[in-house]
């Protein structure tokens, strides 16, 4: 079981959280002007990288808030957790890079 550091509550066991999928997938501002290709890509295509992955978690059995995390999908170690609405922490490797 993972120990996840909620930015609001501190480290808690994984069972208190729900996974929220890839982070920073912004909903297009004006969907009606989008091509089918772009709309399908927004809905369904995901980076699914082998290495660092920016993802959302929600502390459902705690503060209830969403936040973002950087986790290495080859080790499951978290490189960082940070608040929703803030950009990916500076100085961290790109998606798919290894965290160590």
């Amino acid at each position, binding site marked *: 079981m*993972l120990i996840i550091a909620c930015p609001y509550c501190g480290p808690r066991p994984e069972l208190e959280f729900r996974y929220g999928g890839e982070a920073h997938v912004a909903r297009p501002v004006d969907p009606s002007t989008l091509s*089918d290709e772009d709309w*399908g890509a927004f809905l369904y295509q*995901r980076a*699914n990288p082998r290495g660092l992955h920016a993802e959302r978690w929600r502390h459902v059995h705690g503060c209830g808030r969403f936040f973002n995390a950087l986790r290495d999908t080859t080790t499951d170690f978290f490189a960082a957790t940070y608040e929703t609405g803030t950009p990916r922490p500076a100085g961290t490797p790109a998606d798919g890079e290894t965290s160590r």
Partner: protein
Amino acid sequence: MIIVGAGGHGLATAYYLATVHGITNVAVLEKGWLGGGNTGRNTTIVRSNYLFDESAGLYDHAVKLWEGLSQELNYNVMFSQRGVLMLAHNIHDVQSFKRHVHANRLNGVDNEWLTAEECRDFCPPLNIDASTMRYPVLGGALQRRAGTARHDAVAWGYARGADARGVDIIQNCAVTGIRRGPDGAVTGVETSRGFIGAKKVGVVAAGNTSVVMAMAGQRMPLESYPLQALVSEPIKPIFPCVVMSNTIHAYISQSDKGELVIGAGTDAYTSYTQRGALHITTHTLDAICELFPMFRRMRMLRNWGGIVDVTPDRSPIIAKTGVSGLYVNCGWGTGGFKATPGSGHVFAHTIAKDEPHPINAPFTIDRFRDGFLIDEAAAAAVAH
């Protein structure tokens, strides 16, 4: 031609390229060892009782091939049509399963409804005493043609058959890049053992599909999750069939070695670690112990994980891609083993003819642009 991935689906593809289409100048590249990924990690269940016409067509095509596979390969894949019983635990399950039974029968797929007592008669270890259960058994859907097969033997049988016809199977050879010409078409692959030229490349890389396809600049509608399974200590024959319970999440059968083979769920998060969290297997064992109290004191011998590539609608993609000469067979999620022969058969057709077989024509990537989903996720409500 190059097939990336020497699992069951990749080897079956190579086998049918050679036998059906007469194409033997094929290399199957495998970064690890033959059948060492999900082919060697699944719970060996074969069935075709899917709701939608497209799925029933695809999975029943596979079951029909399974029925003759040992003869075809001259290799005993130990296909045993011992029946798969899917248990219903609430009114929604009952309604949903009966709908499946009727839809399957219209598609020529056998499936029948059993009462709780009939379920117990078919599978005597099953507990149906509602007073002892949090989730009582209200009945079940039984597909008698379904069952199990020896997973390793499937890989070995297809590998031997393909090899005998001239296919090269190259292990310990990881694909590191996909090379394309000025017109964008595939010209070959870079590997850890050098460049291999090819006009057509078929990617059958399961959990690593997103990584391989990214080498050709293709983003996929896939996410990769760990899926776990475990086996008990071996015991004398006690369990006559396969029992699945989607609602309380357990799959169980007994292997010919005597081990109880138990399938658990996926972890909540994407990962490539080939392991999973213990609370996932514990959850499944809770369900097993409630359904089969006689197993409560058994010891589990081994548990492991594999990485499964899941599509948004939980149906596979067997299709051409946006790159000329590049084909992909992926997205089998938590239930790809059952389809191995059918998957290889139609994917070989897709590569050889550069157009899909009628059976896999609906399983495109474009369905996620056009909205023609084959939504078995909604139909089954959980992993299958």
